[in-house]
């Protein structure tokens, strides 16, 4: 059994007291400042000495093996004999705050057996500074809590859609000229279930989001919820306009802010199938899930809000109402022609063959296809907290609502700093993950 951090223990630990690295840095800076004052040399020392030896507490494999399985555990099965077995995959597990075992991050290739899982979960969270306090992320915990919340709805997601991204020391400059006086440094660790290979997101707006952020201006949030991204049953086309795609699961899913911007056939066919002398616009194969999330008390007071945007380049699907299952495959466009119009560009190189005079593309789940959703980025936008004087631990329902200081059935423990950090200037746009691709090593759709 793979050894992972005890997420339950981590969740019960106050982040501020554990973040010794940050405290150490602050202590250094204070010491240096005092030295500066004594010497009469001022305003020129900005050092940060990052150090710390904290490591996640280990959970014994036996404890994980003995724990009851959550709904999300064990749902992945290999789609090809080339891939690792489910048994190998299930070794990557952790305990959730509810004591159940959940799947968690694993590398695209099992380092022990060398087999490929065919999918990836993004950046290895163990490199995040927040991993010391967050530990392994239990995939599907918020979905599990929805089952226990007695809200008359259920929402479970597949395994491969869980995508992690993080960055240490992300520099955030508030907007406006006055904001230039500030340079907030943040450690960010996020995970969204963002499946871009199936029809799920065409209609379903509830997706599990883990959002962890700690900043030098004392902003601190550790939040897990089901993010309602836009409205259920519909999405926004990459070319604009709302497309009614069907019935959501659950049908009574709450409406949320933001939207899921997904390419559809009408939009991309004209951009990718082009005439001679033109280049296909493969950039139109781009999904942007722009979330707006709020943590609210039971009385409606907004404790926190944050708006990360999750973007995927070259997904393995687009909405095509004429296709089986309403899912079109971008790689199939490489072999499609309409008159003299066809896909033109390097993206299709090596992805087609001619059989009996017919041009055929490789299957959508061929590892050679670059349309696998492995290139992503996250925009870190406003992180507003209005919790001055409040407790740092709140329990909310799986949607981040009805926050109370004490737990209740189906509640999720959220941690929010006891500050107000609305300065009257907005923060938009620091990007994490741009330029990274988690493909390779056998990664393929569905991913």
């Amino acid at each position, binding site marked *: 059994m793979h050894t992972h951090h005890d997420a339950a223990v981590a969740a019960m630990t106050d982040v501020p007291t554990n973040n010794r690295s940050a405290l150490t840095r602050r202590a250094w800076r204070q010491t240096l400042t005092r030295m500066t004052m004594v010497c009469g040399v001022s305003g020129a020392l900005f050092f940060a000495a990052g150090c710390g030896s904290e490591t996640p507490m280990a959970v014994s494999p036996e404890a994980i093996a003995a724990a009851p399985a959550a709904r999300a555990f064990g749902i992945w099965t290999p789609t090809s004999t080339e891939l690792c077995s489910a048994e190998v995959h299930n070794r990557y597990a952790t305990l959730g705050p509810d004591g159940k075992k959940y799947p968690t991050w694993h590398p695209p290739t099992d380092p022990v057996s060398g087999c490929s899982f065919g999918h990836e979960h993004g950046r290895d969270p163990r490199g995040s500074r927040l991993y010391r306090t967050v530990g392994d992320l239990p995939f599907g915990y918020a979905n599990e809590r929805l089952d226990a919340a007695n809200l008359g709805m259920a929402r479970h997601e597949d395994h491969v859609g869980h995508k992690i991204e993080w960055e240490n020391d992300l520099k955030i400059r508030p907007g406006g000229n006055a904001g230039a*006086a500030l340079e907030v440094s943040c450690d960010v660790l996020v995970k969204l279930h963002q499946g871009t290979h199936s029809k799920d997101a065409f209609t379903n707006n509830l997706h599990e989001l883990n959002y962890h952020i700690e900043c*030098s201006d004392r902003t601190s949030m550790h939040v897990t919820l089901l993010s309602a991204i836009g409205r259920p049953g519909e999405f926004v086309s990459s070319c604009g306009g709302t497309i009614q795609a069907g019935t959501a699961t659950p049908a009574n899913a709450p409406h949320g802010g933001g939207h899921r911007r997904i390419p559809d056939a009408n939009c991309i066919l004209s951009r990718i199938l082009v005439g001679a002398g033109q280049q296909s616009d493969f950039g139109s194969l781009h999904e942007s899930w722009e979330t707006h999330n709020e943590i609210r008390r039971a009385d409606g007071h907004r404790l926190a809000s944050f708006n990360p945007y999750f973007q995927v380049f070259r997904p393995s699907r687009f909405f095509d109402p004429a296709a089986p299952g309403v899912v079109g495959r971008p790689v199939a466009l490489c072999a499609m022609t309409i008159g003299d119009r066809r896909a033109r560009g390097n993206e299709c190189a090596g992805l087609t063959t001619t059989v009996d005079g017919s041009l055929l593309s490789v299957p959508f789940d061929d590892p050679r296809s670059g349309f696998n959703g492995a290139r992503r980025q996250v925009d870190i936008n406003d992180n507003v907290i209005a919790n001055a004087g409040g407790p740092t631990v709140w329990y909310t329902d799986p949607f981040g609502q009805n926050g109370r200081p004490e737990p209740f059935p189906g509640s999720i423990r959220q941690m929010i700093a006891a500050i107000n950090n609305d300065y009257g200037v907005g923060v938009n746009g620091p990007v994490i993950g741009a330029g990274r691709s988690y493909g390779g090593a056998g990664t393929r759709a569905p991913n």
Partner: protein
Amino acid sequence: MLTPHPLHISPLRRARTTGYRRPVFVRSAASSLATAAAPTVSCTPTRVRVRRDAPSLAVACAQSLLIALCAALAMLGVMARTLHAQSSPTQTPSTQAPRTSPTTKADSGIGAALRRSADRHGLWGSVGVGRARAGLDCDACSTSTSGAYAVHGTIGVRITPRFLAGAETFAWLDVIGGGVDRIVRGTHLIGRSYPFSHAPVFLQGGVGVASFEVNDGDVAFLTRSASLSLAAGVDWHVAGMTVTPTVAAVTTTGGKLTSDRTGNAVTDNARLGLLRTSVALSWFR
């Protein structure tokens, strides 16, 4: 105890050895000071919001000088009382003989004490301009500093031939271009020492309050806290004037950095740093 020192270069020495006095002027000035320092007159500095759209250098300078004057008056009053109470027969001849009329009931109080102090020990003051670099240091502050013009004014009294005390106010005004104004303001009680008998070099230290404001016309961030200053300079007598080049550093102990739009603090420990070079015109009487 006041003891003459053989200062042969400093204008301080010149003032004392030549017995340079302007009793009428001093009396007049002292009377004005007494009026200004009367308890019924409030000299409490109040925060004057600089216009966001077009910050005025003149307004900031005037405010700074006003703050300095108020602080100096208050401090001089206290010092004059103290000096008066500590006057002893062992004082040197140059300072023993009272140059003013005997104290009367109407002539008692702070004003009279100031006048006597000025008469015995001498006043001094200076006004300077220069360049300075300033910036904020906090966990959430930009590490960038910027350079801009700075002004400062000082007024005080000579405690001994080698030690002066007074008040200084200063401002640093990064208000030209850039779409954002950065302004540092502060007022310090200062002590200045001339440690060398053969050179008019001085060291100066001060304590007080300083603030840093950055304002783009839409939102402003402000921090204000106790501050310290250290300075070194030299008094040069040039063509009948005293020119005083100075290098000074100012830092604060750290305070909240708050947004004026929401009142929320970005940090509780924003520290100002300022390094200034300037040239001042000084007067010693």
